[in-house]
């Protein structure tokens, strides 16, 4: 009987220690969240991102998948835009472009702000209504949230020449 009681007491004590650990560590864990502005650089913009873009009052729209390399260049990129925005565009077609990784580049300063030069090469199979090759520039701002690989999880941008239309645009990129 005494042995049984002792075992139960030990079990309760073990649970108590566990409770203490959970209770005391919970506030500490949340206190570790970043507070101060992080020092960011091009190295924080790396890996694969998907982006949504629009310009000219959101009349021209596109989605992008691209891969900044963390050093001011890109390893790949694809942009697909609605063909419905262009004269002669169809109700079902899209315009596809591949990023020129040789000519495209980006910069990020210590405050997490930067610029991009994106050179897009039109697919030879695009409908004739699609714009030809074009260069777009963006002003980009990185969020303060980074993943375990030190890459930011989101960036917002303002653009100047989406789909060669020469109109202000905007959008965001997500991990």
């Amino acid at each position, binding site marked *: 009987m005494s042995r049984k009681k*002792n075992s139960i*007491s030990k079990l309760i*004590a073990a649970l*108590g220690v566990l409770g203490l650990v959970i209770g005391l560590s*919970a506030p500490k864990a949340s206190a570790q969240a970043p507070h101060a502005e992080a020092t960011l650089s091009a190295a924080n913009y790396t890996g694969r991102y998907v982006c949504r873009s629009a310009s000219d009052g959101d009349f021209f729209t596109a989605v992008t998948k691209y891969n900044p390399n963390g050093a001011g260049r890109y390893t790949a990129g694809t942009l697909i835009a609605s063909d419905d925005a262009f004269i002669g565009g169809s109700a079902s077609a899209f315009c596809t472009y591949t990023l020129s990784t040789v000519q495209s580049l980006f910069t990020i300063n210590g405050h997490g702000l930067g610029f991009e030069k994106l050179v897009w090469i039109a697919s030879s199979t695009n409908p004739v209504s699609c714009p030809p090759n074009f260069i777009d520039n963006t*002003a980009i701002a990185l*969020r303060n949230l980074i993943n375990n690989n030190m890459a930011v999880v989101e960036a917002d941008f303002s653009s100047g020449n989406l789909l060669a239309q020469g109109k*202000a645009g905007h959008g965001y990129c997500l991990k």
Partner: protein
Amino acid sequence: MSKRQGLASKLFAVLGGAGLAIGICATRASAQAKIPPPWTNANFDNRYICSVSSDANQFTGVMKINPSGTGVYTAGTLNASLSPFATFNNAATPPANFCSYALNTRASGYAVGSKGIGTDVLSWTFTAGNAACPPSFVMSDTFVIRNNITANKTVPRTDFTSNNFLGQHASTVAPQDPGYGQCLK
């Protein structure tokens, strides 16, 4: 021996119960501390990046602002697309196709109400870009802050409606200039 074991058992049980009670209470207390209202200026603090546009998205920009948590800003930068004001230049370096501004921290400020609705005045000083860029301007915003906060008691996102982004309210091209956007941690 049996008596000593009994005492030890009781001691374990008391310590265990106390440990559980403290653990549970501490967890609950930390959870409760994270939930305003009332909201204050302190909940809008540190670094945010913002996407802003106006006049049906004809004007666009990205901002980085640093609210102090006390109603003023310690820094801020705005880069806005030049395209509404001058022809996009394919040959230019990317910054040349944008208008850049620095926040005049002395002339800017914000106030967060107890219900999490705030107002701000952002005074932007032109710093670099094409001669066609709008000059320095003052914009005003009303913003709402999200209901979830970080462990530092700061909100991760605000959404705002704005007046006079890029100073276009009085322009001849766009005599009205309503805008909107969001700011993210």
